[in-house]
């Protein structure tokens, strides 16, 4: 079974490991948000979700055996440089993630002050 031989699996993994890792993180983050009850754990899940998405965005722009797109010496070979656009996108996305996280934590502080608990099942003041 040539398909499952060690080197083929290793090849496949080394090519797609970033995608698998990124979507693993996204799935873990989504699971946490959907299942857990404590607000702080849900916020941590949100942060893991953001990390997964950012990892996915960067791995879209990768060139095999590429280097950083910085011309520190004039005349560097530009054919092997990685795509700079996803890096700019991720810079913005990380800052947006931090902003939302900070706002969520301040809301958690306020919520604890009002209800005395962070259990989302118990914070259901608004009726249908």
């Amino acid at each position, binding site marked *: 079974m040539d398909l499952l031989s060690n080197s083929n699996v290793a090849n496949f993994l080394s090519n797609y490991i970033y995608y698998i890792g990124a979507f693993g993180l996204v799935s873990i983050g989504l699971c946490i948000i*959907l299942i857990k009850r404590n607000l702080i754990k849900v916020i941590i899940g949100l942060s893991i979700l953001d990390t997964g998405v950012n990892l996915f965005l960067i791995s879209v722009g990768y060139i095999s055996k590429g280097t950083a797109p910085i011309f520190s010496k004039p005349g560097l070979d530009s054919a092997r440089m990685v795509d700079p656009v996803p890096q700019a996108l991720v810079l913005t996305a990380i800052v947006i993630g931090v902003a939302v996280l900070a706002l969520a934590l301040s809301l958690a502080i306020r919520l604890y002050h009002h209800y005395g608990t962070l259990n989302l099942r118990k914070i259901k003041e608004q009726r249908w």
Partner: protein
Amino acid sequence: MRSIVSIILIAIIALGITLALIVIPFGEPKTEVGKYYIDKGIEDTGAVNIVTSVVLNYRGFDTLGEVTILFIAAIGIGAVLATQKKRKVEKKVTPASLILYTGCRFLFPLILLFGIYIFIHGHLSPGGGFQGGAIIASAFVLIYMSCQGRRLPVTLTKAIESLGGLVFVIVGLIGLGLGGYFLLNFLPEGVPNTLFSAGIIPIIYIAIGFKVGLELTGIIDNLIEKS
């Protein structure tokens, strides 16, 4: 019950995304847009760090939006926690040990200098305003941890935050006035790989660096004081 539904949902999403990803091979040659930026980056902007020229010159509007979002977060946290009472001063806090106290005070100016180095050299080496700002904020957080009770003056931080944002907008408007395009690079590009090159990029990064550093410090200050 809820766990089962969630796992099914996530399995469907993962399957869908895998279907889409089969078409995007990993490590393939660059796109047309990426190639243009790498080839023409130095001529158009003068910055040797292509990521910086993409962030501030080609996609500068996104960076303006990002700066705005951090500003909104800082103001929003201030608004949400405004009616929360401040932590009472008599609360029992253990003072920092001698090692922490001395070490932090010794490291503070060095870390601050390192942060400023990172954003001033944003167009020459990996780095930039946001990264440098985060390092500056970590220096201030070290001081909060070691010298309990010292805080940055509020009026000064508010003024510098506003000025940072205003500098970005005004530089863009000057570009609009001089050349007809918002965020046009109107200063001379200079010799690549020197400190005074790349037109408006170092100016904007200095403004962003200080602004982000003080904003993150302010956010942490708010969260510590009012919890």
